[in-house]
């Protein structure tokens, strides 16, 4: 029904475009000058046709369920039901009217279901009637209004500009959405678990929260020593550190080589090849780390008499480092190429070799940009999920031994939220609290990195 009405509105929009344009042509044929091109008359009419209709349409969609619910439940209003019971009755009514009801059918609910169905059909038909009459009214109004000296281009362009502006708000809305989705669960979480315990506790054992029977009241003391996030934070930074130990030397040196030494031909082939590494999905890296690198490290460790876990931090961090190489190499390549040639020429003129020029002149000049690229790499390492989920352990050990398994923020979020979640459970809320801390940390890193890179660019442009 909604779909039919929707298509109908769209079709009417097209028709009114056609009528508007035809009216403009008729005016033109009487040798009067138009103030805008004929198609603007068409757009004008089409906008008048579709926009009021869509507004009514969406308002209806928002308010109809609430009103229907009120009307249905008004029958039960003076019988002393609690809110929860009323909600249950309403759900039962809806289920019955869809024919999906299982259980005992009481006459009351049957009556409500019938009422529900009739209300719905009244609502649907009145919606169609109202939307159509709105369309007719507004199109008639606009059609009458357009004449040879009426302004059509300005309102149409203003409308388009408003649409463009609304689209640009999408980025802000997404950020707001992220903050909203995280903040409420996080606040609820910290109502049960003190912030202090979360930030400084050293035992992370969320599975314990599962044991709780949902009918029992929440007892905060139960959760002491359950949600201490120190091992998680430590593991996250530890794995990111290992990754950067791999990515910084290789990425930076290849960036320098590509920018300063490589011939055009080498650069032409090597640069896109290295960037392939950035295009490989992370789940593929995760599989590679878990299937190949982990067992390989374990074997080497065993042959040297070391006890290496098959899911070691080293395997996950090392593979993550490979993934980050192209980010650092291509960003530092850009930064180095944008150092002005005059600095190089000056250094060569003083007799410096190429490597001396790079180390003593170009590198210091490019340092802010390079630091920015490294910070972006760190932010990526901290937020990386699949490699850690698949290749590193899921138990949160507080350790600095790269051969043992550790866990990270992202891995814990996945572990907690995979499968069914119960909102309102401290365990689920813990995942959102972890997400919040992840968001904040990466936000700070990103803002600092982007600012540094921007400052640097401005310096040489």
């Amino acid at each position: 029904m909604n779909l039919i009405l929707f298509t109908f509105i769209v079709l009417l929009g097209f028709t009114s475009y056609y009528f508007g344009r035809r009216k403009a042509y008729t005016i033109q044929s009487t040798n009067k000058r138009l103030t805008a091109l004929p198609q603007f008359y068409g757009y004008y009419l089409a906008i008048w046709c579709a926009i009021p209709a869509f507004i009514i349409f969406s308002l209806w969609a928002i308010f109809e369920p609430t009103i229907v619910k009120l009307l249905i439940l008004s029958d039960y209003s003076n019988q002393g039901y609690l809110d929860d019971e009323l909600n249950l009755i309403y759900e039962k009514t809806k289920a019955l009217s869809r024919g999906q009801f299982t259980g005992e059918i009481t006459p009351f609910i049957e009556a409500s279901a019938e009422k529900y169905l009739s209300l719905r059909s009244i609502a649907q038909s009145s919606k169609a009637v109202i939307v159509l009459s709105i369309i007719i009214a507004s199109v008639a109004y606009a059609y009458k209004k357009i004449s040879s000296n009426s302004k059509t281009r300005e309102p149409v362009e203003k409308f388009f500009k408003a649409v463009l502006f609304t689209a640009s708000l999408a980025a802000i809305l997404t950020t707001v959405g992220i903050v909203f989705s995280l903040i409420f669960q996080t606040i609820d979480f910290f109502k049960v678990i003190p912030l202090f315990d979360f930030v400084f506790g050293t035992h992370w054992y969320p599975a314990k929260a599962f044991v709780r029977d949902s009918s029992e009241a929440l007892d905060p003391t139960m959760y002491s020593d359950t949600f201490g996030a120190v091992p998680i934070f430590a593991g996250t930074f530890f794995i990111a550190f290992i990754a950067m130990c791999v990515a910084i030397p290789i990425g930076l040196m290849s960036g320098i080589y590509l920018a300063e030494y490589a011939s055009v031909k080498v650069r032409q082939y090597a640069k896109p090849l290295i960037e392939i590494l950035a295009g490989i999905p992370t789940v593929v890296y995760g599989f590679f780390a878990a299937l190949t690198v982990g067992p390989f490290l374990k074997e080497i460790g065993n042959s040297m008499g070391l006890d290496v876990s098959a899911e070691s931090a080293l395997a996950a961090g090392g593979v993550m480092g490979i993934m980050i190489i192209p980010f650092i190499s291509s960003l530092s390549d850009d930064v180095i190429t944008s150092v002005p040639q005059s600095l190089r020429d000056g250094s060569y003129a003083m007799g410096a070799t190429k490597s001396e020029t790079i180390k003593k002149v170009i590198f210091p000049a490019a340092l802010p940009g390079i630091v920015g690229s490294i910070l972006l790499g760190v932010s990526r390492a901290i937020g990386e999920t699949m490699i850690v989920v698949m290749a590193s352990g899921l138990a949160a050990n507080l350790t600095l031994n790269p051969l043992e398994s550790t866990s990270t923020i992202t891995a814990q979020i996945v572990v907690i939220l995979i499968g069914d979640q119960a909102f309102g459970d401290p365990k689920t809320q813990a995942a959102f609290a972890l997400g919040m801390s992840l968001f904040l940390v990466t936000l700070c890193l990103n803002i600092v990195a982007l600012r540094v890179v921007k400052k640097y660019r401005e310096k040489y442009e």
Partner: protein
Amino acid sequence: MNKNKEQLLNKRYKAEKRFRLYGQSAIFMALLFLTIFIFKIFSTGYSAFQKTWLIVPVTFDAELMMLEQNPSKEDLKDADYYDIALKSMADLDPNANEDQENELKRMVSYFFEREIKRELLNDPSLIGKTKDVYLTASDDLDQVFKGNYPRDLPEDQRRVTDYQLKIFDQLVELGKVESKFNLSFFTYPDSREAELAGIASSFMGSIFSILVCLMIAFPVAVLAAIYLEEFAPKNRFTDFIEVNINNLAAVPSIVFGLLGLGILLAVFQLPRSTPLVGGITLSLMTLPTIIIACRASLKAVPPSIREAALAMGASKMQTTMHHTVPLSMPGTLSGTIIGLAQALGETAPLILIGMVAFVNTIPGSPLDPAASLPVQIYIWAESAERGFVEKVSACIMVLLGFLIIMNLFAQIIRHKFEKKWS
């Protein structure tokens, strides 16, 4: 003194060479990783494109199938195939006892009944006759035939029994085992049995998600980019939008998953595990990528084009819509494709919104529960069965193939259609 200078110079030249070598080895290392990586995936994955079949003689005994004389097509469809299927497997070894018959049955997939049925439906005149039928071998025997199975393990540590191996080897010697192209890998949905698992369900899930993502992200991103590049006044608010976009581009993908879970599923009550929700989540992630690409290519259109249009009396909106935007489309489109390729490889947010559920039907619309290719990789990689290892690699090959095609396409659009202004 002179000698000292020469030594110093030599030292400096050596340092120069060393530095150069560091650079070369860094590039070499990066490329080495890439090569090992690709090699590893291909060497474990290529065998999944072959599937092992056992050729078993089946006697279509009307009595065992509970069929009357001259059965109609409907009768054939409703007939009981389990008994003749069981009997034909048991007949492989006439001396088998009950346990061994059971083991014989487990040499083929549980689809064997359906495979026999299909054979008869294709040719109803087979009733009462015996015919060699191709039956899908169990995943373990499939691995044995491909040489990936450690046959020398003690019997109690492997899933294939000595007896099954003996019969299998006899069949191999008789030429009754055949390896053919694994079409079912592409046409079957996911399954718990490795030999029957295919990528059709997750592939459709990926396609639907990407379509939803494209339909939302592309228009919004292009409109936003046009506003920011052509119309936005330079003020605090515009700067704020810009900071938001740049920041969103670097937010970890899993945070978008939390957004999908906390807003789309919990607040808007959209159906869990569906490509619709997955696509919306991915579109929020792709948005900044497309906006940035579109702005860059709008910026690359020279001001002279705009000035010429304005000089001819076009309004700002007409100039933008008729001249600037069409000229920027190649760059925008290639940026969009690259953004979609990223979205196609994304896993973590989809796991959080429940697209990790086991789905053994092929989804027909974005509102059916589905997995996606990367999530399928994750699901299979977590399965213990040996047969899934090569499936994972093969699925990765398919995914990488798509990513390569998309990126090539983006390159072609960029090089072929983009105007070079000089």
